[in-house]
């Protein structure tokens, strides 16, 4: 194992290597004062380096011979865990079906489409649906809504929340006609209260918020969905240095993915479209370029197909590529056929 992998400053690393300490084992038997003398640094600094080094070598040792790579999981365990995690319904049965039951927790899902197709609507719908109580097949959790565009409309959230409660009451009536006890105690205001709204006004704030989310979610443990509407906006204006843009975006994507894994929550990124010249004609494609398209686990594209809105699974490691119709009604996202307004529950 190389000293180069230790998380220490460049000058300390340089001193170690020039003094001949290239492996961790060469550091293991040293005392801080020896090292301090050797590298001509303070004893405190030397103690710091040794602490980091011993931590590094411990991580490298196989634990009880069982795990070959530390921190890894077997595929079987992962399957089991996957099944444990609930999914957030979109309120559209067809869409849920192609998504394998809804938006997956622990994963980053990117949703893109032309202006006016319903991206913000879907975002708001998910922020409401994540709050459906466990008794009704939901998660009973809270939502974070990160608005970069200023298109979040509280009036609309209220409409969707009211419709959601209405649907649950209806379902309640069907399931347990005889019981009075199963009354639903939920008010649209409760739903609104549990949506944490951040208004982000520059890309710096967006990066800062991404860094800060980890702490925020540790304080608000029941957040199960983070919606970014849209991830694109600030990165599309005023950006001359495309290499910097790519670097910052991939940094954000990595942090969000880590967030999704660690806290078992769904991250939904909304993206805009742009035009691209492919094979002799202009075509629509999601914005932010090719390297960005690698950074999300799932990618869903919303588009017009004739008179209907469709969602297409463009990329997913587990779902087959398929498309499903949906519609945006006054109640929110619903099945495309108007007679079928049943919401997926239990």
């Amino acid at each position: 194992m190389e000293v180069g992998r230790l998380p220490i400053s460049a000058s300390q690393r340089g001193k170690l290597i020039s003094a001949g300490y290239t492996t961790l084992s060469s550091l293991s038997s040293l005392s801080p004062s020896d090292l301090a003398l050797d590298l001509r640094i303070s004893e405190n600094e030397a103690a710091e380096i040794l602490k980091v080094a011993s931590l590094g070598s411990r991580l490298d040792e196989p634990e009880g011979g069982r795990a070959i790579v530390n921190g890894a999981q077997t595929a079987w365990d992962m399957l089991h865990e996957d099944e444990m995690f609930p999914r957030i319904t979109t309120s559209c049965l067809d869409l849920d079906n192609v998504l394998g039951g809804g938006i997956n927790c622990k994963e980053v899902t990117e949703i893109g489409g032309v202006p006016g197709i319903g991206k913000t609507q879907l975002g708001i719908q998910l922020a409401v649906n994540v709050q459906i109580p466990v008794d009704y097949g939901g998660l009973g959790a809270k939502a974070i809504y990160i608005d970069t565009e200023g298109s979040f409309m509280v009036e609309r959230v209220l409409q969707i929340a009211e419709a959601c409660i209405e649907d649950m009451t209806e379902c309640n009536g069907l399931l347990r006609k005889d019981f009075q006890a199963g009354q639903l105690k939920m008010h649209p205001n409760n739903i609104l209260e549990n949506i944490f709204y951040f208004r982000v006004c520059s890309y710096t704030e967006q990066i800062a918020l991404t860094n800060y989310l980890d702490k925020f979610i540790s304080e608000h443990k029941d957040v199960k969905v983070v919606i970014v509407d849209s991830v694109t906006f600030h990165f599309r204006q005023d950006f001359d240095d495309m290499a910097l843009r790519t670097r910052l975006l991939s940094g954000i994507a990595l942090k969000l993915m880590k967030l999704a894994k660690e806290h078992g929550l769904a991250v939904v990124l909304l993206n805009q479209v742009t035009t691209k010249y492919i094979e002799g004609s202009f075509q629509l494609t999601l914005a932010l370029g090719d390297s960005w398209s690698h950074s999300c686990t799932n990618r869903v594209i919303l588009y017009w197909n004739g008179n209907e809105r469709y969602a297409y699974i463009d990329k997913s490691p587990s779902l087959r590529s398929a498309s499903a119709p949906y519609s945006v009604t006054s109640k929110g996202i619903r099945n495309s056929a108007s007679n079928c307004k049943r919401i997926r529950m239990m």
Partner: protein
Amino acid sequence: MANKLIREIGLPKSIANIFAARNIVTAKDALSLTEFELMELLDVGWAEVTSAVAHISAIVCPPYQSALSLMEQRVQNEHLAGHLPTRLKGLDEALCGGIPFGVLTELVGPAGIGKTQFCLKLSLLASLPSSYGGLDGHVIYIDVESKFSSRRLIEIGAKSFPEIFLTKGMAQKMSGRILVWRPASLSEFTERLQQIKVSLHRNEVKLLVIDSMAALVSGEYEQGIPRQHPLGWHVSFIKSLAEFSRIPIVVTNQVRSQSRDEACQFSFQVQRWKETKEDQARYGSHLVAALGVHWAHAVTIRLVLEAKSGQRFLKVSKSPISPPLAFPFDITASGMSLLSDDGIDLTGPDINAIRSQGHSDIINFTGESLQ
């Protein structure tokens, strides 16, 4: 917040000095680098860098609000919960009270359809005293195409609100609140926008109209896709203007004819390319909004004005609160009026199509009736 100085956010002195020595002055500078780059540049360990970045992030990050408190604030502090009523009953109902504060509302349509008429009416409504349902404020009207007509403005006022405009001196007072400014070029417009930001608060401006946005770039806007949008900066600046002064901003957009291989398909849809082409021919619509898809993403509400077989329609084509609806309308002496307050539901390509069939007939007709 992004330009906060690193030395003033309470980092430990030792690390703050290292940042200063490496010329990383603002939070923006620091957050534009990855943690690894910072380690190399500052020559400090991983633990210090991560804790410094976490601290900077926590300071720069905007505060959160629950959606409930957001709504309560709007209802409490703002006239009609933050809407400018258009006095077109059907449209107001669809938009939950009118043109919302704090966002961009766009009007798209062919020349002569009534975009400017609608803007004039809105300017009047914003300047009316609150006892008459107005916003009782000043209006800044940026008239790029030199189409603003004071005479028409007074005419609309006199016909729609005779009780106010026939009172002596009121017409002068109302129209005195509307400041018209005609920029000569995009650069002048850019310069003035920044001054407007300052004056928005001072002068109690309650509405900003830009008629039209497309005319600003039409000379400079080439077919094809530029790497950076010429209005990129303006888009975010105007949006933030709306947001922070909490006023409605109305912009108009022209139309242009669709070029042959215009992108309107995703790559997985290509096999249906021919089919859609025929569809479009059947609908007879070859018009698209002059500012492209990038701009369309930025506006929150898009209203399309179009003409179909001799009848004008106002369509709510993009809105986070309203389903797509179409209202037949007419331009009368008192401005725009809806022929029916019940919107017609729209589906599919109809929502975004801009038609101008039989349009020239109506222009002649209304042109006469106005005189």
